[in-house]
């Protein structure tokens, strides 16, 4: 049975290859740091379940030291080796669509065949399969040497740099926040400031609280249990008899408006800035704010108007 472990093994292989490619750049003064960073990430993918929680923690500290002291080299995102003549458009788009298509078909197929792959992880496994398939077909159809794919992949990952593991780091920070009880403290603060007699104030505290706390945590999933315990359940559902399904569903989307407005949601907001080579790291966030603020207001209004009909 294909499990997520296979996917991690494959990802580890890629990071290890990037690490070796870094080591080969003899003219790069930071090649040791670069090789160590991606090598540690390969180790995490391969052996993360065997080195223990504390061992993983030390691994993160080592990654942070390498990145924080500027030892992780970035390749100049200079002119890439564009092959001339260009490949035919039809062929190139067909290959580009293999990954989404495999994710689509494979996700359904693997879920239907539980003996073949771990059902819960079907999408991730299908994504990995799609990548392999696209690579194989691409090398064949374009008549390219595997070396090109690896070199270009290393260069792109190098350009992303330490931002590649920010999403994972922020998720881990969220776990420490939860363990230390940040949610309860924030919930207590919010309960302390809102009057318990005004429905409008309670709805605003819930919706804006979801957005704000999501911005702090970078994730609406972390904000939801806190805001539900602090405001949603005691006030909106118990005191004002609101419809729980509406309060949950639209409250979560108020949180998603917050996700659009925070650099803490690194995989959505910082990673594309790096991938697209933007000069302003927060450019995507700023572009999203004028969409997010009206949506936040609309979500609060929807809760107020829909959840409390007699």
């Amino acid at each position, binding site marked *: 049975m294909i499990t997520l472990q296979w996917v991690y093994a494959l990802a580890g292989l890629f990071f290890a290859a990037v690490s070796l490619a870094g080591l080969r750049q003899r003219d790069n003064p930071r090649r040791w740091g670069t090789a160590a960073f991606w090598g540690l990430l390969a180790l995490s993918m391969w052996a993360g379940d065997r080195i223990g929680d504390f061992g993983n923690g030390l691994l993160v500290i080592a990654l*942070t030291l390498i990145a*924080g002291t500027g030892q992780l080299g970035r390749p100049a995102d200079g002119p890439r080796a564009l092959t001339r003549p260009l490949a035919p458009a039809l062929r190139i788009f067909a290959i580009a669509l293999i990954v989404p298509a495999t994710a689509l078909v494979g996700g359904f197929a693997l879920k239907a065949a539980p003996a073949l792959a771990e059902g819960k992880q079907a999408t991730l496994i299908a994504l990995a399969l799609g990548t392999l398939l696209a690579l194989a077909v691409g090398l064949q159809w374009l008549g390219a040497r595997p070396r090109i794919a690896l070199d270009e992949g290393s260069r792109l990952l190098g350009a992303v740099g330490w931002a590649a593991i920010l999403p994972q780091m922020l998720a*881990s920070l969220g*776990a420490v926040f939860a363990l230390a009880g940040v949610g309860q403290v924030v919930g207590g603060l919010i309960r302390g400031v809102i009057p318990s007699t005004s429905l409008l104030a309670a709805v605003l505290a819930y919706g804006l609280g979801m957005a704000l706390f999501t911005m702090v945590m970078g994730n609406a999933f972390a904000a*939801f249990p806190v805001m539900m315990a602090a405001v949603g359940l005691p006030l909106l559902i118990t005191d004002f008899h609101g419809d*729980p*399904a509406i309060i*949950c569903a639209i409250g979560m989307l108020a949180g998603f408006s917050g996700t659009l407005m925070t650099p803490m949601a690194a995989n959505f907001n910082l990673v594309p800035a790096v991938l697209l080579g933007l000069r302003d790291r927060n450019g995507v966030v700023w572009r999203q704010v004028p969409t997010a603020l*009206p949506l936040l207001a609309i979500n609060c209004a929807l809760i107020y108007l829909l959840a409390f009909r007699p």
Partner: protein
Amino acid sequence: MWVLSGIVIIILGFALRLNPMVVILAAAAATGLAGGLDLHAIIAAFGKAFNEARYVSIIWMILPVIGLLEAHGLQERAREIITRLKGATTGRILLGYLVLRQLSAAIGLTSIAGHAQTVRPLLAPMAEASAEAQAGALNPALRDEIREWSAATDNVGLFFGEDIFLAIGSILLMKGVMEQYGIMLEPFELSVWAIPSAVAALLVHGWRLRRLDRRLAALGRAAASGNSAA
């Protein structure tokens, strides 16, 4: 109260543009210590969560495919198509993508698109090419802006589409949290109430994309009249 010090560190660190990895570890240490954890426990908790979140980082495996295709002209071909399409404007391309992204996310297909899968190789080059057709050559600021619009449109479509799907993580989370309070919710009731906000997102973002088109057209007219005057 001191457990909130981590939040302050994060905000200050991001504002001062310090290395985010260092800021995150500092915030974790401060929050953990204030919450009564010892250093060993904090490191272990952070490491455990880091290990469990590895699935977030496997998306990078796609980079060799993208690199291979880009070396053979994927971005250039994407541009060509757009310049040949009549009536293709930046705003319309992004709006079309927004609708597709919302619809596909609403049936659970969240991973078929994304910043690595579709925005960098396809959407951004197409949006840039049509912006060039509308406004003339793009200066670096405007080129960055068009790329930001591409990424932003993917996010808006994903966030305000995925919750319509029954089995998405956030729906299951809400169901689980409410069960702890003895309130039983069906995934269907939750997903159906995500529809009004999804429509609102389409309207708000779509309206902004239309305004973007008007601005690009105005830039193009200004450039054209500037040329003829000269």
